[in-house]
């Protein structure tokens, strides 16, 4: 099904080229928009599909930007408007007028309305908060831990770092890898069952953007214990304070940063 978008893309390019040859900026504009849409949707052949929210954003930007482009020069803009004016006003274009203005456009509006309101069994799209703000302090098995400004105490003990990493690795494979994956890519055995899926640790855009104190809080408290400003927050992450000790959490944090090739975010 995705292959069809290659055809859409090529059709857009063809329309655009023909319009360019015929010096018709309006149809060039239409062709470009079709090509951009085909390109954005067709990307799914090579990478995971772009979310529809992003496709809508890019398309809106494309319409806005190319409309601007075709209205820079006076003669181009006049030529751009010519087919629209012609369909709306010329006496010999009555048929076009009827088909496009009085039938086509209302039908399109009706279809869009129908598509928006037709019953669907899909749960609504949720604008989830990805980085909830951490609380000032947490209660960890009855001990108050100040989260703000908290540093991994094991990092100072460089002599035993190798042991900590080895232990962290064991803890990871006993507790975390089922969801977060063997390769720390968020594709563990259970990953498919969750929405949102587990966080990948590889790449520079997840844990590399977070200080260790934040990761400690997320592991310790899981989906519970969020400050009021961050609710609701969908997650299946368990609260590991019931399973792991404070030291064990710090060890596994050392491991996930080391194994994913990332460094924790620091402010200084």
């Amino acid at each position, binding site marked *: 099904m995705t292959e069809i978008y290659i055809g859409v893309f090529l059709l857009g390019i063809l329309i655009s080229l023909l319009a360019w040859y015929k010096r018709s900026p309006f149809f060039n504009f239409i062709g470009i928009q079709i090509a951009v849409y085909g390109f954005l949707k067709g990307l799914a052949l090579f*990478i*995971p*599909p*772009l*979310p*529809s*929210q*992003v496709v809508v*954003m*890019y398309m809106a*930007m494309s319409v*806005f*930007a190319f409309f*601007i*482009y075709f*209205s*820079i*020069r*006076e003669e181009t*803009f006049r030529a751009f408007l010519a087919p629209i004016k012609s369909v709306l006003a010329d006496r010999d274009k009555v048929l076009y007028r009827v088909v496009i203005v009085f039938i086509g456009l209302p039908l399109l509006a009706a279809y869009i309305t129908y598509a928006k309101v037709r019953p669907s069994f*899909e*749960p609504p*799209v*949720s*604008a*989830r*908060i*990805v*980085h*909830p*703000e*951490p*609380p*000032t302090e947490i209660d960890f098995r009855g001990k108050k831990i100040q989260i*703000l*400004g908290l540093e991994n105490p094991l990092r100072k003990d460089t002599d035993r770092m190798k042991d900590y990493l080895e232990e962290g690795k064991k803890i990871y494979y006993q507790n975390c890898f089922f969801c977060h994956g063997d390769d720390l890519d*968020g*594709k563990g055995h259970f990953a498919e069952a969750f*929405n*949102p*899926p*587990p*966080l*990948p640790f590889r*790449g*520079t*855009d*997840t844990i*590399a*953007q977070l200080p260790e104190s*934040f990761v400690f809080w997320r592991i310790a408290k899981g989906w519970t214990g969020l*400050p*009021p*400003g*961050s609710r609701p927050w969908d997650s299946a992450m368990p609260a590991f304070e019931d399973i792991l000790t404070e030291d064990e959490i710090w060890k596994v944090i050392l491991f996930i940063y080391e194994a994913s090739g990332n*460094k924790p*975010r*620091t*402010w*200084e």
Partner: protein
Amino acid sequence: MAEKDIKKGVLKGLLKLTLILGAGFLLLGILGRILPSPTEDGYRFFPVIGSRVWVWIVAQLHLNFAAFVLGVPIFAVTMEFLGWRRKDERLDRIAYDFTKLFTLAYTLTAVMGAVLMVSLPILYPKFIQHLMKVLGPTWWAYILFMYGEVFVCYYYFYSWHRMKDRKGLHVLLGVLLNVMGTILLLITSSWVGYMTTPAGVTETGELVNRWQAIKTYMWIPLSLHRLVANVVFGAGIAAAYAAFRFITATTPEEKAYYDWMGYTSAMIAIGFSLILPGIGYLLGVEIYAFNEQMGIQLMGGFYAWLWVMQAILIGAILFFINYYLWISLNKMPGGERYFRYVKFLFIVVLLGYAIWLTPHSVALSLEEARRIGSYHPVLGKLGVMASKNTAVIISYMATFISFAIFRMSNKEPTVSWASMGKWLRVLIIVASTGVVLFLGVYSYMVPSVTRVKVLSPIQFGVFLLSILALYILDSRMFKGARVIGEPRWGQMPERSQYALIGITVTFTWLMGMMGYMRSGGRQYWHVYGILKDTSPDAYLPAHGVASVIVTLVTLLFFLMVAFVFWSVMKLEMIAEQRRAK
């Protein structure tokens, strides 16, 4: 506005302020007596829309006008100074026109201020009592300086023509006006600073040190951010005014003047907007330093989605300004030579915009989440600051090149090294873009702290240095250049003026949204960590609701601004008729 007797004009201004303030205090007294007592925890409720939305709308409208009347005088006096030193009548006229605008806008600013002054103590008596206890003396100082500001403003306006032989003294008056304005801004910023990053009080809100309560984490960065943003905003409103006058102008002379005024104002707005991100960054650093939790909530938590909206709007502003400059080539004799470069600039700005607005975390349906995961492998990489900083810097660079092209499009350099100069220009552009790109890619490979504190400032520094180098090079190269023809001011299609109006409307909407985010950072606190908001409104509204309110405020503001524009035109017409008689 006809120029009358200075004394009469100043008295009129002071009387107007006294009447508005007097009416405010009177209404406050009456409402305090006739309305039922506040609830036990210190609230009264505004009918239908609720207290929060009411105060939100009034405060934002007041702030918009205040930004205008504090921002415009800065460049009005700069224009007057330049006009005086260069003996350029046109600059003097534009400065006078700006002054006319902000003098008229003062009345609306004061009216909105008075409505806010009545609303807050009536609807939030406990909160205002607390503020008065901690910062009370600053309020009385505020009133005092407000009188000073109005006195100098009206004197400055009404003495414009009378003091034309004593321009130096008049410019000095303008400077004094700006000093007064800056003091007012510092006072109001101290209130917001105290509410968001309080200091100088105990945990229960007892005053320990008033100066500490004024001099909070946020005070100076917020004041700086507002000061520069006010200039950008004021210049934007002036550009919108010029655009409006251009569209309604009936003579070629008028069209030419307002075309030039719109161009000058828009360039001031965009020029100053270049330093806004840096000051905004400073403000963000101070918020993080005060409370990391608040910082994360503002930048990466609940409000992360609004930053995407901010990116969309800033990208739109860049597009509008480039569009305006590209379309301006039509009026430059010789401008057609440069149209071939426009398509490349367009592609750069378009790609920059696409990256700049790419969200890091997206709203996903269940099926999309299953197929993509938490982060899209490509979008996730484009949606972080390493790529966004790079994209926006390169877009700004393209915008500067559009500006440079416009300025030189009607000239031909005559210096012997012109050919080498052109190559040098290409070299500067290619090299600086290459360095910015390299640093952007390298940013992915270093810890965030290195990116934030080292690489991003270097990227920004390279950009500033390169535009400075280009500016100096072009000034040298085009010194004594052959002029192909003078710009045909006034010969602009009307759609170009809508781009100027678009810039200003977008600025205004952005100000409303960013102001809401800054205020929402306090969450359910009137004064963060000190005085809790226990009213039924103590929750963060959905982004959709916030957007609707900000849109409503923007619409109301422009209705009022349209009234100011109409008043200026009406008064000009009356003055014209009097002169004709």
